[in-house]
C-alpha cells in the first residue's frame, strides 16, 4: 500500500509540473519523459538481458505509425487502434525475436540494425499509407468528455506510461525473470544448467521491451500530432544506448539519470557548440567506458558506500 501511495505521489508531481512551465519548456519536458520511458525499456534489454539490439526505436516508430494509420487513415475507433497498434508491435517483436535472439554475438546487432533500416525504407517509400518522407501530419485527439487532451493535460498520459513502464520493469527486474535474464546474460551455459530456458527468456525479454517501446510510440504520436520517418532514424538508438551506458547500464535508476542528462544537454550546450552536441555525448561515453564502467549511478553508489562505511565510526567517536 505505501508503494501505491508513493507511485501516486510521483504521478501527481510529474503531471502537475508542466502547468508551471512555459509552453515550449512543457513540450521539451514531455519529450524528455518519453526518452526516459524508452531508456528504461532499453536498459532492461541491453543491461539486464544483455542483448545488443538496435531495433528499439524502430518499434517506437511502429507503435506511432501503427496507431495513426489504424485510427486516422483507416478510421478504426481510437481505443481499438491503440490495442491494435500494441498487438502489431508485440507480434512483429515476436517475429523478429524468435530468429534474431538465436544469433550469436554481434549478429543480433546487425539483424536488428537491418530491421530498423528496413523500416525507414518502408516508411519513406510507403506512399499514401505512410505519407512518404513527409509522414502523416495534422490530426488531433478527439475531445474526451469535453476535455481536449493537449499540451499540459496530455502530460498526464505520458506520466502514466512512464510510471507504468517503470513499475513493470522494476518488478520484473527483481523477480525470478530478472534473475534468469542476468544469469543468461552472464553465462548462458550455466544458466541453462540451472534450468533456465535461455532461448525463451531472451525472446520474452526482447518482445516485452520492444512492445513497451511501441506503447511509448503510441503516446508519442499525439505529442506533436504528426509522425515522420526522420523521428525514428538509426542515430536515435545510438543516443539511447549512450544514455543508458552513461547513466549506468543495467540499472533502471541509471537509465533515468542518463536520459534526463543527455536529453537536456543539447539545450545547455547549444550556445557553445551549436548542433554538434553528439560530440559531447561521444566523449562522455568514451570516458564512461574507459574509466567508469558502472556509469553515473556507479559513482553515486561509490559515494553512498563510503558514507555507509564512515558512519558507524563517527558514531563510535561521538560515544
Amino acid at each position, binding site marked *: 500500500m505505501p508503494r501505491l501511495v508513493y507511485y501516486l505521489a510521483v504521478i501527481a508531481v510529474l503531471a502537475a509540473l508542466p502547468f508551471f512551465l512555459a509552453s515550449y519548456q512543457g513540450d521539451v519536458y514531455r519529450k524528455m519523459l518519453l526518452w526516459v520511458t524508452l531508456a528504461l525499456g532499453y536498459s532492461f534489454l541491453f543491461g539486464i538481458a544483455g542483448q545488443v539490439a538496435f531495433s528499439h526505436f524502430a518499434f517506437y516508430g511502429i507503435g506511432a505509425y501503427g496507431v495513426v494509420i489504424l485510427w486516422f487513415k483507416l478510421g478504426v475507433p481510437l481505443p481499438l487502434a491503440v490495442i491494435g497498434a500494441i498487438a502489431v508491435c508485440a507480434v512483429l517483436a515476436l517475429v523478429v525475436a524468435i530468429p534474431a535472439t538465436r*544469433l550469436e554475438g554481434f549478429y543480433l546487432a546487425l539483424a536488428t540494425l537491418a530491421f530498423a533500416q528496413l523500416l525507414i525504407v518502408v516508411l519513406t517509400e510507403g506512399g499514401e499509407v505512410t505519407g512518404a518522407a513527409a509522414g502523416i501530419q495534422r490530426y488531433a485527439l478527439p475531445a474526451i468528455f469535453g476535455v481536449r487532451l493537449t499540451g499540459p493535460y496530455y502530460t498526464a498520459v505520458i506520466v502514466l506510461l512512464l510510471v507504468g513502464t517503470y513499475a513493470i520493469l522494476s518488478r520484473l527486474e527483481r523477480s525470478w525473470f530478472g534473475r534468469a535474464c542476468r544469469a543468461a546474460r552472464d553465462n548462458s551455459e550455466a544458466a541453462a544448467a540451472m534450468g533456465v530456458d535461455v532461448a525463451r527468456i531472451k525472446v520474452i525479454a526482447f518482445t516485452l521491451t520492444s512492445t513497451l517501446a511501441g506503447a511509448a510510440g503510441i503516446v508519442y504520436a499525439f505529442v506533436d500530432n504528426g509522425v515522420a520517418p526522420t523521428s525514428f532514424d538509426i542515430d536515435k538508438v545510438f543516443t539511447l544506448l549512450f544514455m543508458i551506458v552513461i547513466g549506468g547500464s543495467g540499472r533502471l535508476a541509471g537509465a533515468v539519470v542518463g536520459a534526463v542528462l543527455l536529453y537536456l544537454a543539447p539545450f545547455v550546450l547549444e550556445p557553445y557548440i551549436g548542433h*554538434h552536441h553528439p560530440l559531447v555525448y*561521444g566523449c562522455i*561515453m*568514451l570516458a564512461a567506458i574507459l574509466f567508469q564502467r558502472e556509469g553515473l549511478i556507479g559513482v553515486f553508489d561509490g559515494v553512498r558506500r563510503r558514507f555507509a562505511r564512515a558512519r558507524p565510526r563517527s558514531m563510535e567517536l561521538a560515544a
Partner: protein
Amino acid sequence: MSDLLDLLVTATASGCIYGLVALSYLLMIRPTGIINFAVGEWATAGAFAAFAFLTLVELPYVVAIPGVVAVMLLIGWATELVAVRPLVVKGAPIIAPILALLAMLVIMREVIGWTFGPDQFRVPYPFGFRRVELGPLGGSPQNFFIIAATLAVFAAAWFFFERTVWGRIFEAVAINRRAAALMGINLARVTAFAFAAGAACAGLAGLLVSPSFSAHWLMGVPLAVQGFSALVVGGVGRVEGALLGGLILALAEQLTQRYAPIPSGYAAGVPLLLLILFLMVRPTGLLKAREAR
C-alpha cells in the same frame, strides 16, 4: 543488351566499394572478434582526406592515394590505441570496445562535420568522365578505376593471408587467440595492425566514391550498412567472401532498381532483406572459414 552490360559495370563498381568496406570489417573481426561500426566514418575520413589532397592542395592522384592511405593507417592505429587497447588490457568484456568504438564513430563524425560544415565537397575524377569501352563493356573510367583498385587491394590481401608469415599469424590469432599468444605471438601488435589496415581499406573506399558522390560528413552511414550486409552475405571467415558478398548485393540492388516493377526507393531495402535472409538461413555466409589444420 548493351543496357544490361553497362548496368553490370556500374553494379560491379558499387559491389567493389561494398566489398572494400566489408573487408575493413573483416580485417578487424577475424583476429579480435570486435565489430567496429565506425567503418563508415573512416570512409568519410578517407573521402575528406582525398578532398584535402586532391582539391585543396591539388596533388596528383599518384601522390594523393598513398597520402590518404598513410592518414588512414594513422587514424586506425590511433583509434585502436585510444578505444580498444586499454579495454583489452583491463580484460573488459568484448562489448566494451564495441561501445567505445561507437563513441569514436560519433566523435569522428561530429569533428568532421564541425570542421568542414554541412556542404558537399567536390573531388576531381582521376580520368575525367568520358565513356570508356572495353570490348562489349562500357562505362565511366571511374567505374573501371574502382574495379581495378579494388582488385589490387583484394589481391594484396590474398597474398598477405596466403603467402606471408604475418598473414599466417593473423590466421593463427583468428583461430585461437590464447594458443596464438602462448606461441609467442604479440596480440597487441596484431590488433593494432588489424585496425590500421581496416582503416586504410575503408579510407580507400571513401576515396574511390568521393568523385562520384562528393565528400559529405554524413556519407558514412549507408556505406557502413552496405558493408556489413556484404560481410554477412559473403561470410566473415574469408577475404574473398567480402568481395563476393559486395558483388552479390550490388547486383541484386541494381537489377531490382532497374527491372523490378516496384518503386526504385525500395531497392535500398534489397541488401537489408538479403542480410536478414542470410542471417536466418546461413549465418556463416557463403564462404566458410577454413578449419584449423
